[in-house]
């Protein structure tokens, strides 16, 4: 791994980011810096730009950066393909994981894991080696190995899809993970399983961004920073107590702040 711990260089540095899709500007100057070992939460209403931000970091082709930049390990990633970003250690946990009929989950996970391992100059795993690894990781999210035989996310319940996302995160061992509303649609037990999985994967060398509406995920995973997003901007940043205030006062409170900007 290329992680240098000296003085904790930022993993992800987003500065003055403006982005649009189909001529509609969605991000209007976002700044976030994530250093190794940090957990950030981004909260905000539907449509405030949270999901767009996560997709842009992962390289979704529908969005265009108009201004500003995203640096990962000190390098501007704008020209990188989504697969190159993933291989180098950026992970996006989807809010709505995509169903891909006919493609086996197991094969998909193996190809993805090997693409990442290749980048890290580790040996690629054959079918048997991979099965050992994946069985170990399944434990983390309490998934049954029957999931591996099915098509990617096809016919999975909401909770199963989210657990499958965390399984992918566990296999890919990203340096930075952006988890887009991983808590939505989960019952309280599933939420605990997912949260404990995330906590086990995150470590002092990785960064995590949790995008969420609710306080409840943050009760399980305590963030170092909470950012409140509205209308394409971060309007307030604070510690984990900020999430509690939001819970208490609701987003109308942030609407007021937004007006004052």
């Amino acid at each position, binding site marked *: 791994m290329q992680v240098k711990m000296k003085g904790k260089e930022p993993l992800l540095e987003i500065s003055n980011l403006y982005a649009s899709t189909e001529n509609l500007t969605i991000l209007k100057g976002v700044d976030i810096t994530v250093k190794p070992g940090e957990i950030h939460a981004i909260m905000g209403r539907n449509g405030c730009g949270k999901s767009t931000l996560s997709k842009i970091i*992962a*390289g*979704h*082709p*529908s969005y265009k950066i108009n201004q500003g930049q995203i640096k990962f390990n000190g390098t501007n990633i704008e020209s990188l*393909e*989504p*697969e190159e*970003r*993933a*291989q180098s250690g950026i992970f*996006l946990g*989807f809010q709505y*994981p*995509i169903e*891909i*009929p*006919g*493609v*086996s989950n197991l*094969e*998909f996970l193996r*190809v*993805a894991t090997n*693409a*990442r391992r290749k*980048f890290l100059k580790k040996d690629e795993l054959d079918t048997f080696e991979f099965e050992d690894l994946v069985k170990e990781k399944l434990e983390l999210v309490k998934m049954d190995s029957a999931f591996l035989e099915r*098509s990617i996310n096809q016919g999975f319940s909401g909770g199963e899809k989210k657990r499958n996302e965390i399984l*992918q995160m566990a296999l*890919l061992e990203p340096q930075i993970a952006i988890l887009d509303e991983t808590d939505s649609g989960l019952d309280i037990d599933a939420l605990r399983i997912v949260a404990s999985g995330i906590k086990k994967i995150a470590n002092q060398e990785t960064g995590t961004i949790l995008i969420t509406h609710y306080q409840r995920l943050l009760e399980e995973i305590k963030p170092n920073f909470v950012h409140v997003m509205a209308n394409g901007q971060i309007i307030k940043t604070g510690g984990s107590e900020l999430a509690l205030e939001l819970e208490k006062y609701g987003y109308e409170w942030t609407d007021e702040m937004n007006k004052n900007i």
Partner: protein
Amino acid sequence: MINENLVNNVVAEPYKYGFVTDIETEKISKGLDEGVIRLISQKKEEPKYLLDFRLNAFKKWQKMQEPDWANLGYKKIDYQDIIYYSAPKQKEKVSSLDEVDPKLLETFDKLGIPLTEQKRLTNVAVDAVFDSVSIATTYKEQLAEHGVIFCSISEAVKEHPELIEKYLGSVVPASDNYFAALNSAVFSDGSFVYIPKDVKCPMDLSSYFRINSGDSGQFERTLIIAEESSSVSYLEGCTAPMFDTNTLHAAVVELIALDNASIKYSTVQNWYAGNENGVGGIFNFVTKRGKCLGKKSKISWSQVETGSAITWKYPSCLLIGEESVGEFYSVALTNNLQKADTGTKMIHIGAKTKSTIVSKGISAGQSNNSYRGLVKMGSKANGSRNYSQCDSMLIGDQASANTFPYINSQQPNSEVEHEASTCRISEDQLFYLQSRGIEFEEAVSMMVSGFCRDVFNQLPMEFAAEADKLLALKLEGSVG
């Protein structure tokens, strides 16, 4: 929007089998008349019954109209501008492989079908057909020990006239359709298989068809007979060089399954498809039909169609025997300006007969891919069932897919079920795979294989791997 150029690059791949073997050939002059048919028959030293069969077919063909109902549209074929017999020059009678022209052996080596004893495939017997003649058939003696006859049809005409006379044209009569009539008049070579009673063929049998010359048509004829309680798995592969002219290929395949017999017939068709502007390529007009004559007999067609400029092909089953079973599993991939109109006919005649149709069409570029199928329940097909599933996948926004299912039931106590779907590889699906580090090309190819999985599962194992690779190759190119 998916980056269209990217997708188009991915689906464009150079044809690997486009080379021409430089070999001296014996060709007759272009054109078709009774004299040409007599000449072909004479060259093959055929008995009179076969010459009569040909002449009768020719008469019928002359009275027929070339069909135009298919969703194809192609340049009119000039039947007088085709050579109807072309054979590599070699010794009169080749008794062993050592006497076969090394250039021919080398050709099949290059195609991945080594024929010599040291190198030949270990678990598959091969009949190699080059233009109008069969070059060699491997494992003949070993198969003969089990009573299995596997040879070229020309040889069968001489060695097993009673079987040929009884079965040739019994499934696809000469008057069946325009291209079958043409084939019956001028067919040159092909494979013959006979599996005796109670024999399970000890290895897979396979024919490899190679068109080498640009101006001659290929008209092969295959006949497979499975006696009571016997079974066989037969594979067929085809390639041709790249020419900027169109070459006509009109084949007829007849299968006969008696009581409790089962025939599995798999094809990987990779004829030259023409270039990206639609110049050149094979015109592929094929009549394939199986007759489930016996009780509980079974005929299963599986095909992977990736080549040819034009494909017109409907491998069918006549389900005559009680409780007989017909199956059709198909993947058809078209790209650039390729056109395919393919499907099947399941004709339920006997009681409690069952058929399954699974068709997967993938269209890329500006190609057009149609499924056309007929399910017919005859008045005596009491308690019969059919299940059909026809799925289309579109890649890019200029390709098209059509489904033409025809259902005709004269039996109220039978069941016909048809499901159809069309999908497009979505940007979100591609992004999802890419966001896990999977390259764009591989992502497309994974999704295409996933789409075809139901059909690939039906192919013999070596074939399934080959088919998967072939599709991946077709979808490979320079990305970015």
